[in-house]
C-alpha cells in the first residue's frame, strides 16, 4: 500500500480527518476503481484476462518511467528527457544488434550478445541521466531546462544513429550469437509477460529503496528542505545526480522494451512518454515541489492512465477525445491534491 504509515520515521503522509479527507487520500485508488468499473460495463471484453495482460504490458511502459520519475520529482526536480532517452535506448540496442561495434584498430566488427546489449544500453541511459544530474546539481541549471536540453540531444542522437531510418527485424543472427532480443518484450514466464515481471521487480525494489534505505530518506530530505539536508551532512549533489541516473536507466529500459515488442527500433519512439510518466507520478499523489509522493502512488497513477487509454480505445473513442479526457483527469488530480493540502493545513496547529 502506497499510503501506509508504519515505521516510526516513515515520511509523513498528510494527516487529514473525516470521510472526505479519507476519500481524498485514497483518490488515486478510487479513480482506478472508477475507471475499471466504468470500462467493465462500457467496453465489452474489457474484463477478460487476455485484455488485462495486454493492458499491463502497456502500463509497464509508463510505470517503469514513472518509477524513475518519482525519485526525480521527490527531490523537487523533473525529468523531461525520459521519452528521448527511451528512443535513444531503443536505437542503440538496434544498432548494436544489426550493425555491431566496429573496433577501429583491428577493423573487426563485434556483435555483443543480448545481455551485453542490454547492459550497454542501460549504461548509456544512466550516462545521459548522469549528465542531467551534473547539470542540475553542480552547474545549478534548473531541472526543467537541463532535461529539456537532454530531450533534444538524446532525440537527435537517436536520429543520427540511423540517419532517421528504422532498425528493422531485431532478431539477431544465429552465427553471431546475438539472438533473443524479442524475449524482453514478448516472452512470458509462468504465464506472465517478462515486461510485467520486470515492472513488479523494479517497483518492489524502488519502493523498498525509497522507504527503507538511507538513500531513500535522503531523497525525501532533499525534496523537503534542500538546505537543511545540506547542513545535516547529506551529500545533496550526489543524491540529485543519482536520481537522474536512475531515471535515465529506467528510460533506457523502456526504450528497449518498446523496441523488443515491435522487433524494430524507430528513432521517434518514446515521444511524449515523459508527459505520461509525470502525469502518473502526480496522479499518484506526489508534489511537484518535492518531498511528497511514493513509488506505489506512481504505479497506481500509471494504471489509471493506462486503463483509461486502453479502455477508451476499446470503446472506440477517437484519439482526439482521448487526449482531452486524459488531460482533464490530470487536471482533476492536481486540483484534488490542492484540496488535500488545504485540508491538511486546516488541521494543523
Amino acid at each position, binding site marked *: 500500500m502506497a499510503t501506509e*504509515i508504519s*515505521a*516510526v*520515521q*516513515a*515520511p*509523513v503522509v498528510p*494527516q487529514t*480527518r473525516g470521510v472526505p479527507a479519507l476519500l481524498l487520500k485514497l483518490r488515486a485508488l478510487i479513480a482506478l476503481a472508477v475507471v475499471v468499473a466504468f470500462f467493465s460495463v462500457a467496453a465489452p471484453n474489457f474484463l477478460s484476462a487476455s485484455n488485462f495482460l495486454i493492458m499491463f504490458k502497456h502500463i509497464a511502459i509508463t510505470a517503469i518511467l514513472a518509477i524513475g520519475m518519482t525519485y526525480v520529482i521527490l527531490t523537487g526536480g523533473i525529468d523531461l528527457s525520459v521519452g528521448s532517452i527511451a528512443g535513444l535506448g531503443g536505437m542503440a540496442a538496434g544498432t548494436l544488434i544489426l550493425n555491431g561495434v566496429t573496433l577501429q584498430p583491428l577493423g573487426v566488427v563485434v556483435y555483443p550478445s543480448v545481455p551485453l546489449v542490454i547492459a550497454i544500453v542501460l549504461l548509456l541511459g544512466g550516462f545521459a541521466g548522469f549528465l542531467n544530474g551534473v547539470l542540475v546539481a553542480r552547474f545549478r541549471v534548473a531541472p526543467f531546462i537541463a532535461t529539456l536540453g537532454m530531450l533534444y540531444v538524446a532525440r537527435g542522437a537517436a536520429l543520427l544513429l540511423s540517419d532517421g531510418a528504422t532498425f528493422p527485424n531485431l532478431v539477431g543472427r544465429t552465427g553471431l550469437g546475438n539472438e533473443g532480443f524479442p524475449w524482453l518484450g514478448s516472452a512470458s514466464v509462468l504465464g506472465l509477460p517478462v515486461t510485467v515481471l520486470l515492472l513488479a521487480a523494479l517497483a518492489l525494489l524502488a519502493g523498498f529503496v525509497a522507504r*527503507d*534505505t*538511507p538513500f*531513500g*530518506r*535522503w531523497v*525525501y*530530505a532533499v*525534496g*523537503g*528542505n534542500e*538546505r*537543511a*539536508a*545540506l*547542513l*545535516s*551532512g*547529506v*551529500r545533496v549533489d550526489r543524491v540529485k545526480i543519482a536520481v537522474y541516473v536512475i531515471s535515465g536507466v529506467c528510460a533506457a529500459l523502456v526504450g528497449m522494451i518498446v523496441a523488443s515488442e515491435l522487433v524494430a527500433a524507430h528513432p521517434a519512439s518514446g515521444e511524449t512518454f515523459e508527459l505520461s510518466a509525470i502525469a502518473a507520478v502526480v496522479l499518484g499523489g506526489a508534489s511537484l515541489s518535492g*518531498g*511528497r509522493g511514493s513509488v506505489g502512488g506512481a504505479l497506481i497513477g500509471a494504471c489509471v492512465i493506462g486503463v483509461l487509454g486502453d479502455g477508451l480505445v476499446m470503446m472506440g473513442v477517437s484519439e482526439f477525445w482521448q487526449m482531452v479526457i486524459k488531460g482533464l483527469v490530470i487536471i482533476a488530480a492536481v486540483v484534488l491534491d490542492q484540496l488535500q493540502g488545504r485540508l491538511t493545513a486546516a*488541521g*494543523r*496547529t
Partner: protein
Amino acid sequence: MAVLRAEKISKAYGGVAALDGVDFDVHAGAVNVLVGENGAGKSTLMKILAGVEQPTAGRLLLDGEPVRFSSVREAAAAGVGIVFQELNLCPNLTVTQNIFLGRDLTTTPGVLDHASEQARARAVLSRLAHAIDPDSLVGDLRVGEQQIVEIAKALVDDARVLILDEPTSALSAAEVEVLFGVIGELKQAGVAVIYISHRLEELMRIGDHVTVLRDGRLQASRPASDASVGWIVEQMLGDKSRDRPRRSGPPAGQVVLAVEGLRVPRPGGGWLVDGVTTRVRAGEVTALYGLLGSGRTELLEGLCGARPAQGSIVLAGEDISGLSLADRCARRLRFAPEDRQRDALFHNLSVGGNLGLSSLWAFVRRGVIGGPRERSAIDAMMARLGVKAVSAGAPIGTLSGGNQQKVVIGRCLMTAPLVLLLDEPSRGVDVGARGELFETMRGLAEQGLAVVFATSDLVEARAVADRVLVMAGGRLTADLPIDQADEATLIAASNGVGDPSSRSMELAG
C-alpha cells in the same frame, strides 16, 4: 480603555483545546504584553485576533462592536496588523515591493505607482530609524533587517492594533533599542501594541499591561507596574522550580578545534569574518557573543563549511579546511543553524525522521533503516532532550518551537559529535524550555563535547558559557573566562571597544 477585546475565546484543533475561554483586553496607547510557555496558546490567540484563524467559541469586540475577521486582510482593513515570528517575505522582491505586496499603490487602476510606493517605503523605514535601502532585495538582508521590513509592512497600513510576535528574537541590542523607540512612538500615537516575547527583561521594560497564559487558559493579568519578573515566572510556570545554580565548570580538556586566521569573504568584496584565531576545548561551553552583523553566524558557517572560508581549521589534529560540509560532518563537527524553518526542518518527515536524518548509516542493518535499534535510539534521544511529541511518528509541524529546536540539536547529537556549533539555539524557545536547553548544552559539555553557541543575548551568554568570545566587525574583540565576562566588558567589546590587554586582541592584531 480597551480598543480590542477578546471574550471567552476558545479554540480546539481536532478535539485538543489550544485555548479555553480566554479573556484578553487590548488597551489603546499601551504595550499589552502576552507571556506564557510555548504551547500556552499565545500564538493561537494572536492568530485569532489577526484573522488568521477563527475561534471555536467566544467573540471579538472592536470598539465595543462585535467583529469577525475571516482573513488577515479583513483584520488589517479594520486596523489590526500582525508581524509574525517567522518571517513572511519574498526574498526575490525588493523591500518596497514587499512592503506593498497585496496593497499596491496605483496611478490609474492596474498601473503601479512606483514613485509613491518608494516614497512611502522610505518614510516608514526612516520612522524605524533604520538604514535599509528600499530598493535592496529582501533576500540580501540579514534576518534582523528582514524583521524590520516586516514591521514596516505592518506600519504602512496605519494599524490601530499592532501585534508583534517575538519581534526581538532575531534583533541585535542596537536594533532592539530602535524597535523600542518605535513602539514608544506608536504608543504616543494611540496605537495598541500587543507584544509577545520570551525575554522577560524586555517585557518589564516596555510593558504596560501583562497577561499570562498557561495551558490555554488565562492565568493572570495586571498592570506592569504591579508585576515583577519573579511574579511572571511564577504565573507562567506554576510551582515548577526554575532555579539553576551556576555550576563550577570541570577543567577544560584537550583542544579539539583550532582555528587560525579564518576569513570569510563578503560577497562583493571585504570580509564578513576577518582573521579569527581561537581554540576550543573539549568539555567547554563557549559563547560567541556579538551584535547582528558582527560576523558570529558567518564564523560558525565558515567553520562548518556552509560558507567558503580561508585559513586553517584543525579538528582533532586534522586540517579540515579543504573539506566539504558533508566531510566535516562525517568527522563529527556539527552545526545547527539559526533559522530552523528555513535551514533545519523537514516538514515532509516525522519527528523521528528529522531526528535520525544525519545518523542513518549508524543504524543501518543490511541496508535498511528504521530498525528497532534506530527507533530506540530516537526514543532515547527524545527522552534525553525532553522532546514533547505524541510519538516519533508525529509530523514535525505539530511541535512547538522549543521542541523543534531540540529535534534539530538532537539530530546533531545522534551522530556523537566532537564539536557542536549552535547558532542562536534559543531563538523562539520559551523560558521553561530554554532552561532545559541550556542544561542540555551544559550536560553535553560535561560529557566531553565542545559546544560553541552564537548568541546576541548577554544574559544567556553569561548564564550558560564557561567562556565568552566577543565579535565585532568580523573580528574577535574579547576572549574572556566566565568570571571576567561582566556585562560592561562584553558590551564594550561587542561595540568594537576591546580591552587592549585581552589575549585575543593580540592574536587578532
